[in-house]
């Protein structure tokens, strides 16, 4: 059977939040003049994880296993720290299956830049709860509603003292593009969580639900103020802050490794 014709690009639903993320990413790599030959896009498995295949123009791509984008990206960055390594994957991949790796990558403060597409639901497996689903969220599988508390990635990253912790929204092109460019400038670990609707499986956290709630962080907020950043990180509900929550002065992991002082492992 020849399915080549049916194997269309992309595999996303019309109106999917991933389109906004893809558009902003294409613009960000153009605007930041990222050298595409030195750019490696790393992803796991899920609908978000297909993004590297759909970008305009070329890049190096490592589309690995479910939940394991971060360790693969860590290996790539350690082998050749002159590469710009961007991880782009979903909330299930990064916070669920790969949660342990996220925790330890933030502890290492390895210089990889993670864009987590967060739609608070599992798309590719068709509608189960994700680690960020709100309490009470009903699905076929969670038929009595989600009972676990949602994973608070912003707070976790601030506590782990990652170099850069930010949140944006797939429906705000300029803001998202700016956050991506900022994240790619960071020496250590960058976590950029991108809120996005899932038009098929999440009828609660819709495009307009996010649109009504996201609010840029007050420019007076000092991102080096850890306590202030944590206070912002706990806000979720009627108002969801977007922008740079936190910046750390901690050096990136690679800069502390004596063996990398004289070059990369592949030079």
């Amino acid at each position, binding site marked *: *059977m*020849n*399915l*080549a014709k*049916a*194997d269309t690009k992309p595999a996303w639903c019309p109106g999917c939040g991933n389109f906004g993320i893809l558009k902003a990413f294409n613009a960000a790599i153009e605007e930041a003049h990222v050298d*595409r*030959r*030195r750019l*490696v896009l*790393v992803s796991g*498995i899920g609908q978000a994880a*297909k993004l590297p*295949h759909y970008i305009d123009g*070329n*890049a*190096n*791509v*490592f*589309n*690995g*296993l479910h939940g*394991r984008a*971060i*360790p*693969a*990206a*860590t*290996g*790539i*960055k*350690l*082998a*050749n720290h*002159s*590469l710009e390594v961007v991880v782009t994957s979903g909330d299930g991949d990064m916070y669920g299956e790969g949660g*342990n*790796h996220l*925790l*330890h990558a933030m502890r290492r403060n390895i210089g990889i830049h993670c864009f987590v597409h967060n739609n608070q639901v599992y798309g590719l497996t068709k509608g189960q709860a994700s680690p960020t689903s709100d309490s009470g969220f009903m699905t076929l599988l969670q038929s009595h509603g989600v009972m676990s508390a949602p994973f608070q990635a912003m707070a976790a990253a601030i506590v782990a003292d990652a170099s850069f912790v930010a949140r944006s929204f797939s429906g705000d092109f300029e803001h998202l593009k700016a956050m991506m460019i900022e994240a790619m400038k960071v020496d250590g670990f960058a976590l950029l969580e991108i809120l996005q609707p899932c038009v098929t499986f999440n009828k609660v956290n819709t495009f307009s639900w996010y649109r009504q709630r996201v609010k840029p962080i007050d420019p007076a907020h000092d991102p080096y103020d850890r306590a202030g950043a944590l206070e912002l990180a706990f806000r979720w509900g009627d108002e969801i802050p977007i922008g740079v929550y936190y910046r750390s002065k901690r050096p990136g992991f690679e800069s502390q*490794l*004596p*063996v*990398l002082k*004289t070059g990369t*492992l*592949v030079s």
Partner: protein
Amino acid sequence: MDISIRIAGEAGQGVQSAGNLLVGALARTGFHVFTTKSYMSRIRGGLNWFDIRISDRELFAGREDPDLLVALTSEGLEILAPLMADGVVLFDGKEAKGAYAIPFTEAAKEAGNAIMANSVAAGAVFAVLGLDNIQLLNHLRIQFKSKSDELIEQNLRAARRGGELAASCAGRLEARPIDLGRDKVWAGSDAIGFGAVTAGVKFVTAYPMTPSTATLNYLAEVADDHGILVEQAEDEIAAVNMVCGSAYAGAPSMTVTSGGGFALMVEGVSLAGMLELPVVILLAQRPGPATGLPTRTAQADLQFAIYAGHGEFPKAVLAPGSHEECFSLARHAFALALEYQTPVIILTDQFLQDAEKNIEPPRADARPVDFHVVSVGGDYHRYSITDSGVSPRAVPGGEAFVVVDSDEHDSIGHISEDLLGDHIEQHNKRMRKGEGLTSRMLPPVELGHPDADNVMVCWGSSLGPCREAIDALIQAGEAWRLVHFAQVWPINGDLCRRHLRNPPRIVVVEGNSTGQFASILRQAGVIDKCEHCLRYDGLPFTAGYIVEQITGLSSRSTK
């Protein structure tokens, strides 16, 4: 001359340090030395022992029972002394039935510090062996060269005192040194690490797990000298995926693990197969299932290693049988992984990881293996279709864009569900590399009488004990041949049949309860009927164990 010395005591009591001191001093005295370790999974207490065998001939294994037992605790005395038919027993104390009571600890305190009981014991052992203690004293001077003169003097005094205290049993065992001139002992774990270093490994990551950790420690120790990055991973899943990432980026990469850790890695093994990444994994076996016996030995993960990973993809499994093969097969693992762009597993076990021997030093000037990385530009297809199945491999950062995907993919590397086109083409391309690995199988090694009717078959670490077993059987007038497999996967049936030659009697010796390698050979049509000599009590094979089993097998079959 063949003397086996056993130092036994509690964990944390200095069994290891006493053993290390004696091994160094005896090697320096000019013997062939071979050590094995038996320890419990704990930090304190229990009963651990360290066996040191010395001879004027080359040694390949340990022995079941010692000629000289040095018991540092009463448990050591009570449990281990009754196993000895004869021989000498030293006990750290004032009196002991059937043993020479020598107060090592007391004497050490008098010499300056209880911690020097090791030096007292070593002095006593040298006396029992009838050896001049000059090399023991030299070894102590070298071992403590960074310490104060006073501390060195105290240790020398302690060692001399040990010799005096053992006056009543001096010369009970007659050890005649030869002038071998090999001071340095190598553990199998270190020989594998050094093989990897000379092959050109640049990135190593692992989660600590006995008995693989010894290799990780070795690599961490030498990393700075060789520009190698060693990172402790948060878990084994991270380790194998990091290694996939670093291999993709162009650094020769390796991870090390054991039983349960390898089980966690298995999805990553499949990833390396699908992405066609040169990944080397050291799997140091211990008895399972689950946590099993963490500090003991087994060869029970053979089929698990061979079949590790979902889906069908090529891999090679190499199983060193000696310290020399630890070095050479670690190099070969990198050479194969890089040439065929697929995972290669080095399969060893606690016995060989921990066993030490004063081998002829491996060649430090051995050249790095060929990394097989191409520098191309323009329209690069990572998975271009070739006859051999091997596609030219570029790495990111150069002119070519390198796209890899764990989903089935087209020749560029992009995700594809074109079943009859991309999928079948890529699948067949990957599997063609397996044909290459099969045709390049390392030939089995033959020892003993070429035309013997009795053939012993072994793989991996059983080589040493089997080698000594056929020597003993041949000396007893029987005709035996040994066929050792250092490559256990893939199996080239034609090649193996040429080495087996269908003898009347085949005994397959392996450290598991089900005859796993015999099944592999049968499945490949290499053997038909065979007898099994198995061991799965957690202890290593010895010639004595094998000869006893084989004699039992033949007496049963003649009844």
